[in-house]
């Protein structure tokens, strides 16, 4: 009933994570100014995914959770990706 074995993230780690996130945000804003054409969407999504992963691992403490929960989170995101891909089997080939 207690949280004894819970990991405590330090304040400094939280700061570091925030700074990394802010840097990534800046990059994604700058990236659109660079006119990368078709790659802009891809880049924006990749950067967003990286940011989301960081939030999940550190802010949401996934790094310190058990393997099962980590697998679940990964699986859920994977499933969603598959659903999108399958939907586009229809739209892409139309």
């Amino acid at each position, binding site marked *: 009933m207690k949280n004894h074995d819970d990991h405590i993230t330090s304040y400094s780690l939280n700061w570091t994570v925030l700074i990394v996130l802010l840097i990534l945000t800046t990059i994604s804003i700058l990236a659109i100014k660079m006119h990368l054409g078709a790659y802009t969407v891809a880049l924006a999504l990749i950067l967003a995914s990286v940011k989301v992963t960081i939030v999940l691992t550190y802010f949401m403490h996934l790094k310190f959770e058990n393997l*099962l929960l980590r697998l679940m989170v990964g699986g*859920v995101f994977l*499933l969603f990706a*598959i*659903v999108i891909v*399958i*939907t586009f*089997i*229809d*739209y*892409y*080939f*139309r």
Partner: protein
Amino acid sequence: MNDSSTAVPLNFLNHKTGLWSWLSSTDHKRIGLLYLYSITVFFCVAAVLGLLMKIEKFAPGQTIMTAQTYNGMFTIHGIIMIFIVVIPGLAAVFGNILLPIMIGAKDVAFPKLNLFSWYVYITGAFLGLYSQFAHGHVPDTGWTFYVPYSAEATSNVVIALTAAFVLGFASILTGLNFIVTIHRMRAPGMTWFRMPLFPWSLYATAWIQILATPIIGITLLMVIAERTFQIGFFDPKLGGDPVLYQHLFWIYSHPAVYVMILPAMGVVSEIFPTFSQKPIFGYGAIVFSSLAIAFVGYLVWGHHMYTSGMSYQARWAFSLLTFLVAVPSAIKVFNWLSTMYGGSVDLKPPLLYAISFIFLFSIGGFTGLTLGSLATDIQVHNTEFIVAHFHYIIFGGMGFGFFAAIHYWYPKIYGRMYSNRWAYIAWGILFTGFNILYFPMFIMGIQGMPRRYFDYDPKFTLGQEISSIGAFILIIGLIAMISNLVYHRRKGAIAPANPWHGVTLEWQIPSPPPHENFDEVPVITHDPYVFDHPYTK
């Protein structure tokens, strides 16, 4: 839980009395019974609507109702049956009553949430009914709410959509509760692979519930937004895409059909070992096929849209995936047969229902394969063939699974026995009526009789008449079955704790179970289906 001196020992049914003690109880068994009673009532309402439709179709042309009434009727029949009866169905009733007991827990992980989800459910259910009586037209879109019709129809579609949304929320909460319960509340020694198969099937089901239901939730919200704020997600007049709606709808609603059937598969997986006094054959295969059905079942939604103008590539990809999902079902059927093989088989009513489950489910499943195949689906899509397919597989599968479950656990829940004789008679009528009712629809479907048709070409008259007669036979069987159960609830002989010599945990405690299930926490030391265990000898 002591009082062995009193005539009737205290149990979950009588430790407190009064209506309020039920409506406020967080006891999972009582909540399960609340679901059972509400679902039965709604089932009877929707079933009577089904019967009325069959009377209408007894002859071509208008007989007892107008086209508008008929269209409203199959819509509400479908909504009630799908969203209010079979999706919660087994999981909310028998899952609630038995899941904690079968894994050796005192309750589910979040008992208050459990009660709350029943209230959400009831709210949704009454909203659904309200859409029938509220000012305006009855909704007449079919349970699939296809746009643009549902976005334009003048009837109370928004109320019906809201009802479906609320019901989905209840379903999510139940699923969430079950997953956490299974992860966190298993008795000491009950490893994952010592867990009985009914909880396993609920586990797979619960994942579908929490991952698929939100999609329908947001889709219905979008349709509501479309109707009220003219945001045109799906309406082509505003740039929307009607086919996209179908995608979203089936991303949920196909997995939902496995929400219906998986628990029924779990139920029969309990019944076959007990009535053969023999361990389940291929425990691991059954577990993994449940998980496989849940996963692959999530990816085949497009088979409802073969004629919607999807790309050619999408059509065959969905067809291929659909066929893959049939394999785990096949694995289960063969394992069940092998479980009985070599056993000491006792044809009590629960087993009778379980066997008819296999028969009807196979017919439903094989016709599902006919639908999964591209060329043949083009012919029978949206004909009565589909209607027959899903009545066979939902009513014959999930429905008969439900009947099997109630005959199996009835003595455990109420501590009384029903009459076996009447159970056999009712089964006979029910089974005959069922096949007479639905089988002709396969044939008419292939000949081209479309579904959702108020009127039909006179050449189908004979088939429709036979089918309608089947409905009357079926209803007699159903009434007999329900009466048998209701009557013996108070008048039946007192049932022992373990009438069928079952080995899973629920049979090791008194009937009806005490308020907190176990006096002391069971410690599990062996696999779930070991029949030479001292308990049974």
